[in-house]
């Protein structure tokens, strides 16, 4: 197979529209994911971040718009090409998505067992190395039901890294983690980019984490891209909704709560 010309961007999204049943959830999404960089897609809950995540990992397809990976349209991939693409990527789902009937080691070893002809002992050692990387080596024989949610997420990350992927997609890495573990995960993501030159896409709504790790940021709201660029460009954005998001002012729940108490108590709801 001829090697594709290496461009600065490994993935480019052009005019992506996405629907669930007949409800449109993404509107004309256009941005690029640079190679060997950490791109953070962030926004409030329901802004469409996870839908983009599903499109980038090939779990959702659309006929409106294009996702171009290394110069080729992901939507036009045959089954074989899609399988090849997925062997280049690692994916960490929000819940970890570990298989309940397998131990942590067996979970992490699964891609190696299916896709390689390595000896069982070699596979086990490689799985243990990845578990060690995420600080779970001593839990290698535990079942997923015996560990916490945060540990499941770390084990899921170990599994996503087992095939040494070119690209890593991470959905809400910090959710359910304590601040120390979340910070450790951020450091790991930066290390992966630094040491392995990995292209990493992180979907999150954690502002602090996003600005710590991102080389580029895409801010989403109600299925649209509000802003895309380097972190300093996002911070300097003049867009009112971007500023509200960064300042945590765009909180529709708070507006409803205030209105509710105003009607109930005849006050603004603030404490005396």
């Amino acid at each position, binding site marked *: 197979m001829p090697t594709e010309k290496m461009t600065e961007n490994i993935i480019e999204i052009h005019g992506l529209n996405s629907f669930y049943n007949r409800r449109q959830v993404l509107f004309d999404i256009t941005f690029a994911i640079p190679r060997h960089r950490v791109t953070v897609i962030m926004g409030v809950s329901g802004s469409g971040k996870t839908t983009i995540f599903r499109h980038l990992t090939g*779990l959702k397809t659309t006929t409106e718009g294009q996702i171009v990976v290394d110069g080729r349209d992901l939507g036009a991939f045959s089954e074989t090409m899609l399988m090849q693409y997925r062997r280049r*990527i690692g994916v960490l789902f929000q819940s970890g998505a570990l*298989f*309940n009937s397998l131990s942590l080691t067996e979970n992490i070893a*699964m891609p190696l067992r299916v896709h390689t002809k390595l000896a069982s002992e070699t596979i086990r050692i490689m799985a243990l190395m990845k578990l060690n990387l995420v600080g779970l080596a001593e839990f290698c024989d535990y079942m997923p039901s015996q560990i916490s949610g945060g540990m499941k997420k770390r084990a899921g990350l170990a599994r996503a890294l087992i095939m040494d992927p070119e690209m890593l997609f991470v959905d809400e890495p910090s959710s359910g983690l304590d601040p120390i573990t979340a910070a450790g995960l951020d450091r790991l993501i930066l290390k992966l980019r630094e040491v392995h030159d990995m292209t990493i896409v992180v979907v999150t709504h954690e502002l602090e984490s996003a600005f710590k790790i991102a080389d580029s940021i895409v801010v989403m709201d109600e299925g649209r891209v509000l802003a895309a660029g380097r972190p300093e460009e996002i911070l300097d954005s003049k867009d009112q909704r971007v500023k509200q998001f960064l300042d945590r002012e765009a909180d529709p729940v708070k507006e409803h709560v205030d209105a509710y108490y105003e009607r109930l108590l005849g006050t603004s709801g603030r404490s005396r």
Partner: protein
Amino acid sequence: MLNPVQTLGAWALRRVFFAGRLGLFFLNTIRSMMRPPGKFWPTVTQIQFIGAKSFVVIAFTAAFTGMVLGLQGYHTLTRFGSEGWLGSAVGLSLIRELGPVLSALMVTGRAGSAMAAEIGIMRIEEQIDALECMAIDPYSYLIAPRFIASIISLPLLTSFCNALGILGGYVIGVKLLGVNEGSFWDSLITSVDWNDIYMGLVKSVCFSLLIVWICTYKGFYAGVDEGSFGPQQVGRATTDAVVISSIAVLVGDYVITSLLL
């Protein structure tokens, strides 16, 4: 005025969509049987779950069904002075009809519901998505071993059900009610021929396919149509799997019987 027409049209389109998806699910499963990952040990595990662990419930079902057949058959046949044909009545009823149908219904309730629930939970916890993202065919990993195991297990369970049911009828008819032992076995042997056994086998294979197809399909697509992935969707998928499989077994029984008789 157009609303009822629109509603009917939308309903019909949805049914066609579901039928098409069910058919594609079956074809994908058949195709996946030739692909990695290897299926030997997963299939053995499923044979143990679907077959071996259904043994006890089948044994109880068979024993008591045979005993009831013996009891009812005796009291009916004595009216015509034909209690000597009890073995034939029990044997034919079990081998042609009750063995395959009751075994299928028991396996649906036990293993079918568990399959739907397990795969449904994997769906809502994104484990099936994780398989796809690891370039592992979920049909090959999850569904095909269950198909193979079901096709192997149910005919064996049916045969066991028939044997134990006949034994149950023998105990009641011969030992309790005094039917002549020689008449019992002689009537069984002379009445049951290869066509009866063939019919029972064909039914059990067809039922096994129907059960595993419907139950795994329901689990695989739990919550997908609603776009909502939670315990309620798994519960609904499991209930639908059992109900639809049971109806499919009963309807399939009539169709196969009418074709083979």
